[in-house]
């Protein structure tokens, strides 16, 4: 079976140890986590984890089964890229003199829809949100000028399909 990129969304209770449990489900099966994001969700006291990994559909189903088995996991879903709306963000730290000496940089920033977040005498910082490929393209363009620091966040995503987590929580309490 073919491997594909899946976005795994997990709604959980807040718990210190849960991340450990979930990452070990991947570790045990030699599945590399490409990105992982934890944040609050639309429901109070419910955390949302978003994990991106490349695996077969058969194995993503089994992984979801194992994740849902964890006590504090409320619900887990998996989606393909087509089924979700997703972005990542990245920060680039660049030497300030380049911004003035190399006109081209300003064009690159404009054309890529990136934003300058801060400018100081020594450096300036560009923020870019978008698909991984767009961020990589910007990276490639900036590389020749020298990038002092680069960091890319994990994927955040919402699904096209409705989630109904609140209803589920209510049902499980009754």
């Amino acid at each position, binding site marked *: 079976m073919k491997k594909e990129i899946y976005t795994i969304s997990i709604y*959980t*209770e807040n718990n*210190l*140890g849960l991340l*450990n*449990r979930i990452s*070990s489900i991947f570790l*045990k099966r030699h599945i590399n986590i490409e990105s992982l994001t934890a944040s609050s969700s639309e429901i109070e006291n419910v955390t949302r984890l978003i994990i991106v990994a490349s695996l077969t559909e058969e194995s993503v*189903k*089994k992984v979801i*089964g*194992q994740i*849902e*088995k964890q*006590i*504090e*996991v*409320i619900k887990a879903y998996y989606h393909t890229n087509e089924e979700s709306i997703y972005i990542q963000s990245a920060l680039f730290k660049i030497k300030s003199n380049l911004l003035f000496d190399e006109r081209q940089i300003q064009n690159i920033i404009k054309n890529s829809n990136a934003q300058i977040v801060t400018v100081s005498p020594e450096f300036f910082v560009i923020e870019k949100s978008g698909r991984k490929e767009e961020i990589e393209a910007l990276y490639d363009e900036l590389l020749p000028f020298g990038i002092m620091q680069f960091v890319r966040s994990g994927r955040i995503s919402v699904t096209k399909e409705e989630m109904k987590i609140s209803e589920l*929580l209510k049902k*499980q*309490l009754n």
Partner: protein
Amino acid sequence: METLTKAKKKTKKEKAIKINGAEAVVKSLLAEGIDLIYGYPGGAIMPVYDEFYKYQDKLHHVLTRHEQGAIHAAQGYARVSGKVGVAIATSGPGATNLITGMADAQIDSTPVVCITGQVGSNLLGTDAFQETDIVSISTPVTKWNYQITKASEIPEILAKAFYIAKSGRPGPVLIDITKDAQFGELDFEYKKCEKIRSYNPVPKMDKAQVKAAAELINKAKKPFIIFGQGVILANAEEELRELIEKADIPAASTLLGLSALPTEHEFNMGMVGMHGHYAPNVLTNECDVLIAIGMRFDDRVTGNLETYAKQAKVVHFDIDPSEIDKNVKTDVAVLGTVKETLVALNTIINQNINQKWHQEFKDLHQIEYKEIIHPEINPTKEKLTMGEVINAINNETNGEAIIVSDVGQNQMFASRYANFKQSKSVVTSGGLGTMGFSLPASIGAKLGAPSREVVAIIGDGGFQMTIQELGTIMQTKVPVKIVVLNNEFLGMVRQWQEMFFDRRYASTVMTNPEFTAIVEGYGIKAKKVSKRENLSAAVSEMIASKDSFFLEVIVEKEGNVFPMIPTGATVSDIRLK
């Protein structure tokens, strides 16, 4: 007036009282109906032990000789009683010594709660004396775990621990309690946990799936049932029997499902798997509908998955959704407790007669009987065989004993040759195959089912892995019967070396001590038998003994367990020699 109504409210709700965390641990255990726990003290858990001292008339603590012994005893207790077993230990090495038992309980779905002491919360993360991150270490081998750092958390977290351990598919839970939380004060009030919003222990039964299952079964010409421990955990033995009898279906057990159906039941075809019986293994690949009930298609059961029951429609009854399609693709999955789903199934199942199909089992069984079983229990060779020892025990116990086998050849012979009349008669380490499990587990089993005879069957290797628990038997006087089948080899590994490594017996030869002398050193009656003519008298003396009794039987050195499905082979290619 106001004070009056307030006072009334308080008595109604059960009063909160101020106590320290350690006492709250004991009171929580008592509130859960626990009167027996197994453990070993040490620095970080001393406040709780101090409370054990004060509460010793209500809560009996069994001091094992090693923490591994404590958790295996708790497992044995849980397996025969259906109640939650509790093991307690100190931080650091005490806690890590519990790990093997947690892994064992996790893979064999045994409800156990482990309580460990931990260094004070101000010391966490400082590499303090006897600090280990037991929560991280135990994560992959527990159903749930949690570290308590405040006394006030104790009742609620312990209530959750018991609920999680025993509900749904049972499993081990570890609660780590820092020393300051044991000393700290709290207003104690205990409420049993009945719900956790993120946890759905029993999936809702889908009637349409039950119907789909019934349709397949009703149409089947060659239906075959494999049942596992799920039947025992759900108390569904009667329902299983009703299904088998009504629809006339031959049935076989997994290792942990043994005793859910009496051995002598005419439709009980024995055990499936690597050293299971010939007929059910071969006919797994002949049946048209394979009905799996409360089992998980372990690789020791299925052999090569590519060639496992490919001709059959598969119906899988289980409580755990993640087991469906995990190893074997199912056509119909019925989720829920096996009890609930079988009750529903039995109302719509048709009566049936599958005489010809049963005959196929009988014919194959005849082959196994002639080639393997008969010679094993009626040997012509001089040396005793493991099978004949088990058979002698059957004769003496009338199939009414709880058999606690260890791991290796002794386990397979015990499972193949012991007779069981009632459920919960088998305690063994199935999924993990933990050598050394059986001696401590037998202690827990006897304490969990005091009216039943408990016989531990152990190899000379496994016996020496937890031999120190003889001390526990001596001190508690728990009357377990211990049979060591001594072949002076790590027998099962030796058998594989014989079959697959050209008899290169690397590190499987055992130079053993005089076991009876050791056992007698512990004040336990001991006997050694090496001749056939002395076997049955010795077994009968052992069973008649009111106290614990040790019987060493010197058996054939290079006996082999057959049939056998070599690792990765097809079930139907099971070898008779």
